[in-house]
């Protein structure tokens, strides 16, 4: 019996039971589509996150107070505490102390409610210096950023993120308007260009004020010199690790700490953030894909079930074919081909559904779905293999039937 004969016979058998075959194929189809979509979603999210983080610049170091490796229990954890000051930032900015550092911007940030007329909007208020614009790689779309003079004099000015401006005024053309924060009126001098969301915060929803203004009128408190984050820009990407060492050494000296493990600050690079975020999403993707793969397993069991039914139903046919001269391997191959065709059909249709889903989903969920050719080809292949693997047992059973018993079956 040739392959064409076998395929023709298998196809005829599948067509004889359209409903049953369709349901079996559906089991595989759903599994394959789910795998393609979860892998696509995972890859898409990873890509989004790394794109967003990389957009901040690969030459950036982020210094935060506290230590994530703290063991004494006395200091605040990562991101908290008041151990970083404006003096630290000024020392880091010195080209003598740290030749590989090109720019430094300290941030003193707090959540606050902004008011404009009847409208109010809660957002993050960031007190910083004019270097912030360069170091964070931002541009101003309307008006201008505040100046060093504004910073020195504690001028009551603010630069809004485009989303903040939109929320407060319904437009981004707001230069010259006034917003009120904690009873202090601030004049809008500029609006930032849109940037999008990063892994940790919405870069477009922010209010930037001079550091002195923030310290004097907004954040206040005892520790007016404490800052929450210092952004350090290396002179270039390949001098990032040199900048890292200079920053670490300088801050250890300034803080009078000998043991780097006891540092009261933490320095992160964008790369570290990217790899952390990517690792998180990869784990998530693997987990979800595992669940999707389970449904594929269930689909495979469906194929096996239907093939066993088929063998039982066609026992007499098997007996007859054997009587007419079909050797066991021909019977086995016939049922394997049938199971393989079911699996393959599920794989191809599932891939089509997955690709269609990958086109539709981003619009609905506002996410990126990356469907790679390799994932699609791999899934179709997996579906075929599942069909064949789960077909082995039924096919072997068919091949082993004794012709006399099979002929007598009712």
């Amino acid at each position, binding site marked *: 019996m*040739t392959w064409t004969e076998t395929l023709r016979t298998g196809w005829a058998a599948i067509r004889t039971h359209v409903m049953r075959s369709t349901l079996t194929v559906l089991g595989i189809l759903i599994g394959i589509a789910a795998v393609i979509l979860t892998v696509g979603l995972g890859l898409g999210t990873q890509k989004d996150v790394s794109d967003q983080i990389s957009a901040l610049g690969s030459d950036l170091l982020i210094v935060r107070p506290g230590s994530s490796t703290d063991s004494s229990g006395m200091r605040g954890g990562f991101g908290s505490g008041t151990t970083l000051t404006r003096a630290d930032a000024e020392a880091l900015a010195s080209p003598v102390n740290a030749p590989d550092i090109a720019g430094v911007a300290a941030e003193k940030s707090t959540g606050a409610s902004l008011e404009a007329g009847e409208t109010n909007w809660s957002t993050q208020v960031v007190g910083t210096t004019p270097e912030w614009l360069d170091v964070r790689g931002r541009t101003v779309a309307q008006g201008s950023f505040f100046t060093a003079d504004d910073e020195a004099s504690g001028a009551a000015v603010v630069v809004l993120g485009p989303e903040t401006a939109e929320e407060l005024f319904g437009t981004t053309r707001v230069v010259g308007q006034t917003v009120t924060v904690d009873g202090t009126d601030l004049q809008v001098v500029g609006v930032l260009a849109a940037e999008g969301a990063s892994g940790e915060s919405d870069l477009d929803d922010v209010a930037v004020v001079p550091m002195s203004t923030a310290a004097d009128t907004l954040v206040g408190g005892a520790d007016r010199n404490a800052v929450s984050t210092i952004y350090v820009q290396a002179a270039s990407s390949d001098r990032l690790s040199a900048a890292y060492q200079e920053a670490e050494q300088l801050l250890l000296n300034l803080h009078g700490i000998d043991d780097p493990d006891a540092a009261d600050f933490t320095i992160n690079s964008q790369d570290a953030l990217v790899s952390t975020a990517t690792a998180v999403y990869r784990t998530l993707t693997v987990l979800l894909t595992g669940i999707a793969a389970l449904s594929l397993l269930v689909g495979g069991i469906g194929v096996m079930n239907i093939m066993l039914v088929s063998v039982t139903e066609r026992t007499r046919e098997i007996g007859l074919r054997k009587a*007419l*001269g079909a*050797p*066991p391997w021909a019977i086995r191959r016939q049922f394997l081909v049938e199971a393989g065709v079911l699996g393959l059909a599920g794989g191809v249709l599932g891939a089509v559904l997955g690709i269609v889903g990958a086109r539709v989903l981003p619009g609905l969920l506002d996410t990126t779905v990356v469907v790679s050719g390799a994932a699609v080809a791999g899934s179709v292949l997996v579906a075929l293999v599942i069909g064949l693997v789960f077909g082995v047992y039924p096919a072997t059973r068919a091949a082993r039937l004794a012709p*006399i018993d099979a002929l007598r079956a009712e």
Partner: protein
Amino acid sequence: MAELTLPLPAARPAATPEPVIELTGVRKTYRTGTVEFEALRGVDLRIDAGEYVAVMGPSGSGKSTLMNVLGCLDVATQGTYRLAGEDVGELDETDLADIRNRRIGFVFQQFHLLPSLSAWRNVELPLVYGHVPAAERRARAVAAMERVGLGDRLDNRPGELSGGQQQRVAVARALVGEPALLLADEPTGNLDSVSTRDVLALFDELHAQGRTIVLITHEEDVARRAQRVVRVFDGLVRTDGDPR
């Protein structure tokens, strides 16, 4: 095309007939758990080319077991069986399938046609497993269908044919591979009297053309059509001779 048309040759029995079937001391024992049952208890039987033999016997006599052994559907526990000169005792499943394919044409009581295939597709099945090219299969299947008088029913499904016609399709399928032996198991058991006459007339014709036919039956008037009757009783051949 001439060499493809079936009724072959009236290959008349030669002066010294060749044995098609030679059973020597054949025993067949079935074992269910600890209970042993001896269905055949030492059968000797020789059937020559061109003979038309009826095998008779009450149920439980070992008649069906004999038929299974003769058809290479089952293997004897002891003794030898030579089919057309070939010892089939030591063969495995694959080789037995090949022997059945080349040497034996089966006709069953329940016809055993595949309902999803057209008549000629059913007839060509043995050739499919015999690795005959597609074009030749079609030609030989059509010739066999014409031989049994159903040349106008090639594309009908078994469900669209009468019982007698279905059994004639089955005979065509048994003939298509030019086997040495035509083995019919109660071929008229499911047929009315008209169809029975039809099918038996067909066997008479085939016999007249020199085919070797073994027919298993329990009906005396069917057995009378044969040239020789073998009666099986308690796993042994009791009488062997002229039916009349």
